[in-house]
């Protein structure tokens, strides 16, 4: 397990693909390199696609956890420049 402390949180459960990824990406852009973002996302397409898109952008995924209400929390460390 990787140790981390969440610096910022973004909720993308109020939007649908592909805006989910855009919203997560904008939130990441506002962070400094190495900071950690918690992304709150829905089951289905978002959880299937957003983690992979984040990886393809070069960021480090730290953890994906399922919540009891069917949503997920994805913890991402912003890639260093």
């Amino acid at each position, binding site marked *: 397990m990787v140790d981390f402390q969440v610096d910022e949180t973004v909720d993308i459960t109020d939007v649908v693909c592909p805006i989910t990824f855009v919203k997560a990406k904008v939130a990441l852009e506002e962070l400094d390199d190495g900071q950690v973002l918690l992304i709150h996302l829905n089951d289905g397409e978002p959880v*299937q696609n957003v*983690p992979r898109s984040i990886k393809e952008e070069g960021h480090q995924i*730290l953890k994906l956890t399922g919540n009891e209400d069917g949503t997920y929390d994805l913890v991402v460390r912003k890639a260093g420049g």
Partner: protein
Amino acid sequence: MEVDYKALKDGGFMRQIQKDHFSLRLKVVGGNLTAEQFETIAAISRKYGKGTVHLTSRQGVEIPFIKLADVEAVKAELLAGGVHTGVCGPRVRTVTACQGSAICPSGCIDTHGLAVEISERYFGRQLPHKFKFGVTGCMNNCLKAEENDLGVKGGYTVAWRKEPCTLCGVCVKICREGALAQTEDGILFDEGKCNYCGRCVKSCPFDAWEGEPGYILSFGGTFGNQIAPGKAVLPILHDKEALFRVSDAALAFFDKHANASERFRVAIDRAGWDAFAREMEEAYHG
């Protein structure tokens, strides 16, 4: 002078309903053309056609309204501009491909490179009927592999490594086949459920999944007058030489068993899928 329409058609000049006009089919491999080739095509279309082109259902380009009298001049000018004419009739047709791993994040194999190799080996080869190859990079199947007489689909044979895994949970969630389950200290992989899509490899943040690229072949697809998807008769192949041994054998089977003007599908149906599968397995094992 008598016009040999068959020879014209074989060389890609498709007769139009308008007398003495042809829609000229061009050679395209894997759906790729260079900007220079486009410029040549545009110039020919303006000079000899009506300034239009038609994009065919199989990634081809046709220039309609070429006049019979201009056929030779058009051929020469195209060739000088790096553009070859296509083919029609009973032979291996345009090899189609998606963008594949060279461009697309989902791609598991280099589809365009493979399409070029297939085209160099077989394009234009005479057979009992038309024969279509198509190469798609992954399970998303943008290129519709099973619509082809011989379809190639890229996939990954995957293996999990404990050491880099942090049990983050992404792969278990991303697997659409339900092949993965997470325990307290590892990932359980049910190989029987895996469809080689490679999504676990592509999505793993820690590169704990290794994927070996492979080819899944489908045979006898036809989507014209008869509609039937191609069938897989072999396991996933990992070696390109084996792929070409199998495709050589498939074309030989077609030549041997098909009546004239009979599609590959019909020939396999009549000769029997068991017999066909046996021959493909023999070729696969070399």
